[in-house]
């Protein structure tokens, strides 16, 4: 006789899973705290989580977080502007001239897989130890996805939509403005989002590496001061900011492109 073996998962509260995730995090913190106090983990390698958490407010107050924030944001904004104009522009160019696209699209794709950020010493030499270097690395790193997605969006416009345009006798420029570009917008947005994220990752990373700039430099400084709780705290803080930024990006995108 078959018995009713109910699938219990749906009976759990919908919040059970995220609660487990959160609980694991808290539990891990607590475990590490205990292990350090007991001496199982060397406290000069891993500082007490409680100290790390305490360091965060200290960092915020003492290290001019707002100023650093602003610096990193500025660099990101400049990189974004460059990405929008150069990235979308190049994408449109490559779409418009099919031969150019056939010749160069694979190059752009190859570039996307190349360790672009490793050119930072080169950029250091060319632009000096300045914000320009950081912006340029961010820009170059974020460029390939913007170009590729722009091309993809424009090329992927359904033929029938263009047929409609042509049946209304739109000229080429109108076709582009009223049909191609709107149709490509979702794709272009995705490309910009990916490009911006790539840019930001590289911006913060290079700030850390060359010890200049905003948030990335903060970590470097605290590390060089051997402020262990401060270093851990700063890393955690930057991770938090990065996560928040990503979440905001997603929300904005969802708001801008419903469905």
């Amino acid at each position, binding site marked *: 006789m078959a018995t009713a073996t109910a699938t219990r*998962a749906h009976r*759990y509260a919908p919040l*059970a*899973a*995220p609660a*487990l*995730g959160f609980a*694991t*995090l808290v539990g891990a913190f607590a475990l590490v705290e205990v292990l350090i106090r007991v001496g199982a983990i060397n406290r000069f*390698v891993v500082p007490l989580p409680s100290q790390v958490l305490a360091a965060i407010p200290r960092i915020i107050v003492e290290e001019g977080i707002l100023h650093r924030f602003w610096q990193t944001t500025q660099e990101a904004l400049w990189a974004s502007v460059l990405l929008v104009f150069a990235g979308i522009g190049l994408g449109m160019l490559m779409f*418009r*001239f*099919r*031969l*150019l696209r*056939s*010749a*160069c699209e694979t190059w752009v794709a*190859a*570039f996307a*897989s*190349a*360790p672009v*950020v*490793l*050119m*930072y*010493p*080169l950029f*250091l*030499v*060319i632009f000096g130890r300045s914000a320009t270097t950081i912006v340029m690395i961010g820009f170059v790193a974020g460029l390939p996805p913007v170009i590729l997605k722009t091309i993809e969006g424009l*090329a992927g*416009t359904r*033929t029938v939509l*263009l047929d409609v345009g042509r049946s209304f006798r739109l000229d*080429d420029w109108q*076709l582009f403005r009223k049909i*191609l570009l709107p149709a490509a917008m979702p794709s272009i947005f995705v490309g910009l989002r990916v490009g911006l994220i790539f840019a*930001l*990752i*590289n911006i*913060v*990373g290079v700030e*850390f*590496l060359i010890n200049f700039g905003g948030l*990335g430099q903060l*970590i*470097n400084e605290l*590390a060089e001061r051997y402020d*262990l709780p401060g*270093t*851990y705290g700063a*890393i955690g803080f*930057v*991770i938090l900011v*990065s*996560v928040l930024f*990503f*979440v905001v990006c997603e929300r904005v995108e969802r708001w801008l492109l419903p469905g």
Partner: protein
Amino acid sequence: MAAARLGNEPVRGRAARRSFVDFASPARNRLRSIWALRVAIIAAVLAIWEVVAESGWLFRDVVPTVPVIARAVARLLADRSFYSNLAVTGAEIVAALAIGGIAGLVAGLVLGGNRFLARAYEGFIYYLGPTPKIIFFPIMILWFGVGPGSKIAMGALSAFFPIVISVASGMRQIAPVLLHVGKSFRATPWQMTRTIYLPAMRTPIVNGFRLGLGLAIIGALLAETKLSNRGLGYLIIQSYTTFDMPRMYALLIVLFVIAIGLNALIGRYAVSDRARSS
């Protein structure tokens, strides 16, 4: 007619996908013009470079002339120490990919297979993914020392995320009917994994590893530039501190060729698979 198709396409052609089928010019002609354009672009870039280098408009040593760079590349490839450093970096990346890859595979299989655990933990991974991992480097040095250990750790940490995400999503994208077939034949869990799950996920797994490899390379190399006395990254930063620009260009060129080449190879493998799979 064929000549009219060379060079810039007229505006008419751009909009319609259907002009992909270009009856006027045979495919071979098109291939030739593509390569002609590529060569032309490369030639133009090199020419501009040479002009800028010669003019000394940028500080001369920053932009060495093309022959100087070419000689530097040759010198580099003949240099024994280059290869020993390359080997060090290579070993670090292999280890990083192995560790990060296995961890990512296992985590991906678990998260892909269990809805509840996925809802609990996948958020962490998804949102932690797009963060700059290099900032963890000071911690890695504390935990794993100043040697290759911290570089491997950096690479493994970087490679882990794309692999988990693509394995988990690859698992979820398997057509449910294929799993039903396995169950209807009463395959054991091991048989299900071996004959259904893994083959069905081959493309996402390969793509995940492709991304993971790229990120492992970046992670390990950046770590080397920050703090190391061996490896390719170390050589790059050394050429920076000694202001040996030709050598830096040579190193970057070789590095890019290797990285792009590896990626292309894996891509070729993935495509030959896909031709059978899809």
